Structures are given as C-alpha cells and as structure tokens.
C-alpha cells in the first residue's frame, strides 16, 4: 500500500500504460509495413511488367528467347540478338573486370604501402560515382575514335586470326561496350574483394609463409582460396551491374538488331534496346515486346543479385560495405 501511494502521479492515471503501448504497436506496425513494402514493390514490379508485356508474351511465348527476328513494322519480335549482346558484353566485362579488379585488390592489401592504399582506394570508388551518361559521352567522343584508329587496328593485326575478331574496327560495337563496362564494374569488384582479402586471418598467411612460401605463393595457396567465395560474390555483383547498365552501353553499342559475330560488330543489349527504341515504338506490340525484354532483364538481375548477395554475405557476415551500388 505504501508503495502504491508512492508511485508518481502520472503512473496512477488510468490507461496510461495502455495508451503508450498502443502507440508502440502502431509505430512498430507502420514501420514494419513500410519495410515489408519492399517485398510488395518487387512483386508489383514483376506483376506490372508481366501485365504490360502480356500481348507479347502470349503471342511469342518462349520463342521470344531464341528468335532473332526483330521486325517492328511486321510486329514480329525475337529477343535473341539482345540476349546474346547482353551475355557477350557482360561476361567479357566480368572476365576482364575480375582479373584486373582482383589484381588491384591484391595490390591494395598485400603490396601497397599505407600512403598509397587510401588514395588509390578512394580513386577507385570515385569511378563508381561518375554517372553512366558521362561514361557514354566519353565513350562516344574519346574511346570510340581511339578504338577505330589505334586499338582496333592493333588488335585486328595481331589477333585477327581468332574466330570472333574480324571486320572493320568501328568506333562502336561490342568491344567499346566491353571496355566501358569493365571500367564501370571495377569499383564494385575492387572494393568488395579488397575487404574480403584483407579479412583473411594473419594465421593463414603466416602458416604458409612459415613453410618457405614466396609472397605470390602465399596469395595463391593461403589467401585466394580462403577468400574465394567472397571474391566470387564480388564478381557476380559486378556481373549484375554490367547486365543492367544502360546509357553508357546505349551510346557505344552501335544499335544493331543482328546477332553479333565479331567483337567489333555493332549490337544491342537488353537494356540499351529498351532505352533506344522505347520512345519510338511503331505499334503496341512493339511496346509490349520491349516491356517483355524489360521483364526478362528484371528477372535475370534479381536472380544474379540474389546469388551474389548470398555469397558476399556468407563471407562478410552481413557487414555493410561502403560501396553502395
């Protein structure tokens, strides 16, 4: 009784705790609903795209994926050239980006003195901040002419015997797109690989060094295998970025609806064909077909991103990296 009387005035008002608890439930509910809204959002995206693409989906079904006929006037559409273009440019960018990116990450962790590490890391991250359209502009006016006049002739001269290396070295095409995409995905790969490689425990490095290993042997035997799933995740994240990259590619890819047969061929990727053709659709089937391409693009990036995130998370245990795509 003594205790009840000594409780502060405010606590003795009826319904006090009840009201505060009500607000707590409401607050928590609102916040949770908004957060779950992301889930709704992703579902809505898939639904809306599928809904708008339905005329094309019902007409072309899965044939869409391997037909090469893209004929807007006749309303006959097949997306294989774009799928091929996306695959080729993204995979090539993935290969180059991973080799150079992991190499740079190794440099930053194993070789670079600390006064070099921070500036170079920052400069690589700055690359990520440059807008896609600026990469495209640079691609059109700088990279393209360079390919046409310098790099292209060099490659044709020494590598022209390879099956996919022929034809005039135009300023636009697969090669230009691959170069730009490689540069654009480097920051992603370097930043994540750097974190993953730096996280390899000292005991592992010392273990192999104590057996008489050289620095490269240490990297090859103790560091890279330990870091491999994280590096793989970084690479796949880079791949996801390359697949979705639109404007820079649109400006240098050459806009051809034929399946490319040489690295210097003009082509189209799924993202760039949408960007270039959407505003000038000739009929509603055309628009539906482009949205169908968009749907495919969405599904592919969802899957690739999911795989990549799971891989990276397994290694970094969900710690947030400072690279935000």
């Amino acid at each position, binding site marked *: 009784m003594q205790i009840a009387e000594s409780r502060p005035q405010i606590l003795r008002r009826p319904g006090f705790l009840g009201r505060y608890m009500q607000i707590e439930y409401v607050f928590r509910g609102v916040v949770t609903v908004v957060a779950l809204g992301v889930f709704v959002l992703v579902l809505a995206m898939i639904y809306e795209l599928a809904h708008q693409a339905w005329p094309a989906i019902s007409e072309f079904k899965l044939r869409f994926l391997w037909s090469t006929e893209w004929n807007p006037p006749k309303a006959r559409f097949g997306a294989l050239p774009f799928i091929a273009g996306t695959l080729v440019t993204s995979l090539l960018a993935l290969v180059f980006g991973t080799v150079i990116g992991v190499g740079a990450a190794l440099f930053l962790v194993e070789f670079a003195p600390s006064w070099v590490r921070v500036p170079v890391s920052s400069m690589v991250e700055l690359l990520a901040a440059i807008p896609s359209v600026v990469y495209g502009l640079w691609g059109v006016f700088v990279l393209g002419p360079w390919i046409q006049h310098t790099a292209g002739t060099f490659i044709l001269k020494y590598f022209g015997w390879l099956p996919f290396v022929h034809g005039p070295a135009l300023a636009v095409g697969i090669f230009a797109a691959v170069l730009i995409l490689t540069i654009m995905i480097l920051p992603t790969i370097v930043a994540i690989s750097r974190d993953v490689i730096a996280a390899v425990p000292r005991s592992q490095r010392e273990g192999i060094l104590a057996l008489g290993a050289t620095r490269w042997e240490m990297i090859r035997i103790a560091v890279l295998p330990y870091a491999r799933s994280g590096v793989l995740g970084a690479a796949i994240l880079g791949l996801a970025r390359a697949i979705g990259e*639109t404007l820079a590619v649109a400006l240098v890819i050459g806009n051809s609806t034929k399946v490319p047969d040489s690295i210097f061929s003009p082509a189209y990727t799924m993202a760039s064909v949408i960007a270039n053709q959407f505003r000038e659709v000739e009929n509603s089937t055309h628009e539906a077909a482009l949205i169908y391409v968009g749907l495919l693009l969405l599904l592919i990036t969802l899957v690739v991103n999911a795989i990549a995130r799971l891989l990276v998370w397994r290694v970094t245990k969900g710690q947030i990296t*400072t690279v935000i795509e």
Partner: protein
Amino acid sequence: MSAATGTALSMRSRNRRRRKLTDAVASGAITMAGIGVIVPLVVILGFLFAKGLPALHLSLFTENPGPTGVAGGGVKSAIAGSILLLLLALAMGLPAAIATGVYLAEYGRGRVGFFVRFLVDVLAGVPSIVIGIFVYTLIVLRMGNYSAFAGGVALALIMLPIVSRVTEEMLLLVPQMTREASYALGVPKWRTILTIVLPAASSGIMTGIVLGAARVAGEAAPLLFTALGNNFYSTGVFRPIDALPLRIFTYATGPFAYQHDQAWASSFILVMMVLVLSVSARILLQRRAR
C-alpha cells in the same frame, strides 16, 4: 641441408629460381593492375576538364535550349528540372527509406528483418531502366502523360535502398546503452527511437541522403519514359520535365557541334557536383564508422 645430396641441392636451386621468377612476374602483374585501375579515372576526369571547362559559359546556366540546330542557348531548363526531380524524389522517398532503415535497425534483427534486408539489397541491383519501365506502366500509362511526378517516383525508388541501408547502419552505431538508459527511465521504444536514437544518428543519416541524392542526380535511364525530357522550361510537376543527364544523353547523340560542347560542359558540372557530394558523404561515413 645435412640430408641433401648434390643433385637434390641443384634441383632445389633450380626450383627456387623458378619460384622467385614466378613471384616477381606475379608481383609485377598485380602492381600493374593496382596502378592501372586509376588510369580510367584520370583519363575521364582529364577529358572532362579539357573539353568541358572551355565550353563552360554563364549562358549555360541562364538560358534555355534554343531551337534545334541553332547554336547557343543553355541548359537552364535541365538544371531546374534536375533540382525539381531531386526534391520530388526526396519528398517521396525519404519517409519510406528512413522508416525502412528504422525497422531494420530497431525491429528487424530476426528472420523477417533478414528477409527485408535481403530484398532491399536486391532492389538496389535492379537496373534503373527497369524501374523506369515499372513507373511508366504504373503511373505514366494510368495518368496518360509523362510527368516530373513520375520521374520523381522513379528516382525515389532508386534512392530507397541506399538511404535505407545507410540509415540502418547509422542507427546501429548508436550505442545500445543509450537506448537502455532511455528505457530505464520508462520511455517507450517508439519515443526513444524518435526523440533519442534518430537525432543521435542524424548526421550520419544526412550523409546517407547526400549519397542517395548524388546517385540519382546522375541517373537518366529511369527518366527516359517517365519525365521524358522537355525542350522548354517547365516546372510543372505533372508535365514532362528536362534533366541534366537526359540533356547530355540527347546532345551526345546529336549531330551539332554546339550540342557536343554543351554536353561536355554539362557533364563537367554534373560530375563535379556528384563527386563533391559523394566524396564528402563517404568521408563523413567512414569517420563515423570508426
């Protein structure tokens, strides 16, 4: 070496020479990769300065584009449009992003939270052009016309994952003791979050917003079929509107030299702005995270 015979020794020294050579070659390649990655940045920035700076005139900021083909004019409409779009994106995207960040940090430490976090990261990876198509089908088709509003929605969707995750990160940096001190005083959780935790993390959250803004300022793909672009000055929220990256895209593919010059100058402005925002945001983020 007491156990080694003469032949074993020479075999070993050949082996050792080969290993040292491999090490030297690999080290050289790795160093080249390390230096090579900064080459693109230097080259691109170099060209931006070389081609953008000379074309930078005051008229860029004060004049609208003239009729196509006529030299002169500026990109005032694009700059104004970019600002309006950014404001719309912030107005529409921030509440949801911060709410999501609050959920993830304060209520989402379990399985549902893992699921939401995963989706937010996956959303971050959706190509911006796909988001553009989505908003086109969701809003533009239903409204019947392109609009700044639709563009703002698209940009808000792109900004959402960035700001959410940074908000979560910044909220997690607030020590648990701070929250517990508040609970011990009888303050309920929601009030603790609103009056104590959020303010404590506010400067970090601000930098997250800056990062998000820097990212969407440079986006043009989602605007292609939402805001559409506009050759005339317009600030109508429900009408098509121009944006700086859109104009750069248009001019880059245009046939006229004045368009190319203005594209370079506009890129210079855009990149400088984006870089300054990104760099300062990242520096602030890293300092807080330590």
